[in-house]
Every structure is written in C-alpha cells, then in structure tokens.
C-alpha cells in the first residue's frame, strides 16, 4: 500500500518535471514552470522519506538535519548572490548535485561489496555504480573549476598535448572500470578507488584549458552530465522519478549546450578543445595605421539629446560595473526628451545567453525595449547614435569581413551602419576573444573611456544640465 502510494507520487513528480521544463522554455510561463517542477520535487522528497521501504525511523534525525542545513545554506546563497554572479552560482549548485551522485555510488559500492563475494559482484549494478561515480565526479570537480574560472579565482591553463593527455586519461578510466566489471578481479575495491581518483583528476583537466568565455557552454554540458549521473541512481533503485528527471535534464541539457554553441556559431568540439578565449599567441592583429577618436561626456550628451533614435548595446562591461540601473536612468531621461531608446541584445551578450536580459530586467528596463539581434540589425541604418557600453566582440565587424579572424562567422550586431557610434570602454584592451576591433578605428566611431557606471552617471548629469 505504502509503496503503491509512493509510486503514484513519483508519477506526479515525473510529470511535473516534464510540464515544468516545457513551461520554462516560454517567457510568459517560465516562472510558473519553475514552481511546478519545485512542487514535484518537494512531494517526491517527502514521499521518499515517509513511504520508502527501508528508511529507518532512527535515521530521520540525520535526514531532516541534512535537509534543513542544505535548505538554509541553499536559500541564503541563492538569495544573496549578485545577478552578475548568477552563472557561477548555477555552476556551484550543479557541482553539489554531481558530488551527491558520486557519494551515492561510493556508498552503494560498499553495500555491493558487503553483500557479495568480491570476485562475483553482480555486473549490472556494478556498471551503473561505476558510471554514476565517473560522471558524478567529473561533474562535481569540473563545476568547481568552472566556478573558479568565472569568479576569476582560477586562470586558463593548459598543458602541452593537453588533449592527448585528456583522451588518454579518459580511456584509462573506462579501461579500468570495464576490466573491473567484466572480470571481477580480487582487486575490484582498489580499482574502484583508482577510478574515483582518476575521474576527479579528469574533471580538473577537462575544464582547465577551456577559455573563461566558454564557461557557460561547459556549465550547460556539465549540467547534463549531472542529469545522467542522477539517472544512474534511477537505474540503481529502479526509481522512475530519478530516471525521468535525470534523463530529461541529460537530453535537454545536451541540446541546450548545442543551441548555445550555435548562437556563437561554434561547434561543441571547437569549444571543448578551446582554441580561443584563452591566451593564444595570435592575439592582436591590429589594423595598421588606425587612429581612434576620443569624445568627452559633454559632447556625447549633446549627441544623445538631439538624436531621434538611440540604440544601447550592453555588454559584459556594463554587467561588471553594475551599471544597469544608471543605464536605465539615462534611457528614461532620453525618453522624456522624446528620444526613442532601444537595447540591442546579442544572444551571448554578457557571459551567458540571456544574462543581459536578466540584468536589465532587474533594473526595470521594460521587456519590449530589449530587441534581439535579428530584429535590431535592420534598424541600425536609421539609428542616429549607437551607445556601446562595455561590449566588444559582439560588435566586431571582423566577424563578417575577416576570414582569418577567430570569431569569423559569429553573428554580430551591425552597429557600423548607424550614423554615430560611441564606444564606452575602460581602455583599448581587447575583448574576451583577445582580438582587436576595427570598429574602434572607423571614422564614425568615437571612444568614451572610463568605467561604465561612472561614465553613464556623468552622461545623466550632462543630459540633465543641457
């Protein structure tokens, strides 16, 4: 009876995951979708605690203790994190899930060893435990490295022949695990721990050489890894809700990873081998003889105030300077003066697809002012002033014109079609791809140097005083 009710609860949970994920993929239902999935998760957890056969009442204290500690820590860190640090946070939570799967495998392996002679462990469960261990460990450690990279604590490093080492290591892991499963030698226990250590090492080496700019893709990939690791638990316990949740995230996450790669016009292999975003030698191919024109805040303010159409291109510079609020203030001010202001959002603006939308929405910029790339590009012809705030690679014409450029082929915002382009940057330093931007040297372009927040604030004062 108990387990019949539990199965029904798991069914509801599994369906809620599917419905939730579906709703999450549409802007106007996304929030409810998240809540529906959370509801499904809650009943599945409560159901397991009280109805699962084999849970000892004497262990309730530990279970609730863990749930309470995890909930408090999770809520606090999720609430406190700044919007700009969202990607790191997601990576960290993903790593926790991977670690959880890894520990489950470790404990279940010991159960298996305790219940069977070491040289005759059942192959099926051992295979699942091994896979859960390998994938969970890679996801756990890989996510921590990705977290470190995004928060600037870990740099991009790569060994000589890194890819060869990585592939060799992966084959070694699979070889040892396969040998232990197929032949069940006396040393299976040692081999299990060897696989664990090597998987942790692989997690580090896998993410280490990939450039910081590509971390969102990596996080998305590791996210689907954790999904698969969770599904292994589903096999192990014949638990359908774990299976459905895990596989769903595994497959949806893989597709999402590919979609994100496509938005940057790169292949997944290209991202994983990591040939740019790091510190590759062919960094600066500066267009020869280019001179830049500087402009001050006063002149910029005049230009903006007497324009009839202004497009703001926000980039990571705006995000790090926390300038979204003052940016919105400037937009409001200009709108009051009768200037039409829009935001041009590149699919990978910021550090993560959709990141910029979240930031601007946070500062109350209305949703219909955020125009996606395909729709804003034809409008640049009729735009008087484009204000590029801390963006670089996404407006680099080299992506269209220069076949030798590492970003060649990436769709860009065609700001060079506008009448005036004002680029706000802290310095002439190259963007994440590490390449020069010929846009800065064009006659229509003026550079406004300074911190995005401070400069925007200056612009607001100047426009007000005009």
């Amino acid at each position, binding site marked *: 009876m108990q387990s019949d009710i539990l199965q029904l609860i798991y069914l509801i949970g599994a369906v809620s*995951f*599917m419905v*939730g*994920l579906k709703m*999450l*993929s549409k802007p106007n239902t*996304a929030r409810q*979708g*998240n809540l529906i*999935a959370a509801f499904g*998760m809650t009943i*599945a*957890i409560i159901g*397991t605690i009280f109805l699962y056969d084999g*849970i*000892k009442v004497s*262990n309730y204290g*530990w*279970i609730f203790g*863990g749930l309470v*500690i*995890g909930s408090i*820590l*999770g809520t606090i860190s*999720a609430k406190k994190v700044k*919007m700009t640090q*969202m990607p790191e946070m*997601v990576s*960290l*939570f993903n790593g*926790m*899930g991977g670690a*959880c*799967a890894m*520990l*489950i495998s470790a*404990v279940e392996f010991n159960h298996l060893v305790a219940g069977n002679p070491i040289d005759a462990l059942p192959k*099926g469960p051992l295979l699942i435990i091994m896979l859960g261990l390998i994938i969970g460990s890679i996801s756990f450690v890989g996510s921590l490295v990705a977290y470190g990279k995004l928060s600037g604590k870990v740099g991009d490093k790569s060994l000589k022949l890194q890819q060869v080492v990585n592939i060799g290591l992966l084959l070694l892991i699979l070889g040892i695990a396969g040998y232990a499963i197929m032949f069940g030698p006396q040393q299976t226990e040692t081999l299990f721990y060897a696989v664990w250590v090597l998987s942790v090492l692989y997690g580090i080496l896998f993410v280490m050489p990939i450039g910081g700019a590509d971390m*969102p893709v990596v996080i998305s990939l590791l996210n689907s890894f954790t*999904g698969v690791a969770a599904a292994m*638990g589903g096999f192990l*316990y014949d*638990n359908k*809700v*774990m*299976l*459905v*949740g895990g*596989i*769903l*995230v*595994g497959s*949806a996450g893989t597709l999402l990873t590919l979609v994100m790669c496509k938005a940057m016009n790169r292949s997944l292999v290209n991202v994983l081998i990591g040939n740019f975003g790091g510190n590759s030698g062919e960094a600066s191919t500066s267009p020869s003889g280019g001179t830049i024109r500087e402009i001050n805040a006063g002149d910029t303010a005049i230009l903006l105030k007497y324009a009839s159409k202004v497009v703001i291109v926000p980039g990571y510079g705006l995000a790090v300077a926390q300038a979204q609020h003052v940016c919105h203030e400037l937009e409001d001010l200009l709108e009051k003066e009768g200037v039409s202001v829009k935001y041009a*959002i590149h*699919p*990978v603006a910021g550090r*993560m*697809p959709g990141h910029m939308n*979240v930031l601007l*929405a946070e500062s109350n910029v209305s949703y219909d002012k955020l125009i996606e790339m395909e729709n804003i590009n034809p409008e640049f012809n009729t735009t008087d002033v484009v204000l590029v705030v801390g963006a670089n690679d996404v407006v680099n014409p080299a992506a269209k014109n220069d076949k030798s450029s590492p970003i060649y082929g990436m769709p860009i915002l065609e700001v060079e079609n506008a009448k005036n382009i004002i680029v706000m940057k802290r310095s002439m330093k190259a963007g994440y791809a590490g390449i020069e931007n010929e846009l800065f040297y064009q006659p229509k372009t003026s550079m406004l140097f300074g911190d995005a927040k401070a400069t925007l604030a200056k612009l607001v004062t100047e426009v007000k005083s005009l």
Partner: protein
Amino acid sequence: MLEFINSNIQIIYLVILMIFVGVELIEKVPSVLHTPLMSGANAIHGVVIIGAIIIMGEAETMPATILGFIAVILGTLNVVGGFVVTDRMLEMFKKKK
C-alpha cells in the same frame, strides 16, 4: 546481452522516450531564456537527492551515515539553491510587460 535487454525492456523504452521528450521540450527556446532554463534544469537533476535520502535512511555503519548525511546536504543545496536562483532570475522578467 539479449537477456539483459529483455529483462530491462521497460526501462530502456522509458529512457529512449525521455531522450526524445527532452529534445522536444527544449527546441526553439528564445536565447533570452537559456540561462534560466539551464538553471531550472540544474534544479531538476537535484532529484538525485532521493538517492541520498535512501542511502541515508538505510545507513547502518558510521561511514555510510556520514557520507549519506553529506550527500543529503549537497543534494538539498542543489535542489533548493537551484529553484530559488531560477525563480530570482525569472522574477526579473515579470515586473513590467
């Protein structure tokens, strides 16, 4: 091999169907939603917490208890943190329309 497939045929069907469902669900997502969607999916794979609760609940030895306890904490972090972060992101989209 054949025997293995036959004895697990239901699960195999389920896995294959879920792979297709996952792909279908995500197709044609506006790039605006990539981050929240990734974050939401991140919270959903926190379902691994159920495995953690099971090992914790069945734990008899001290090492199993400790590992289980840590697993429950980590799994909860994944679930709670994941859903809260996603909700915070999506909350921003809703304010003005």
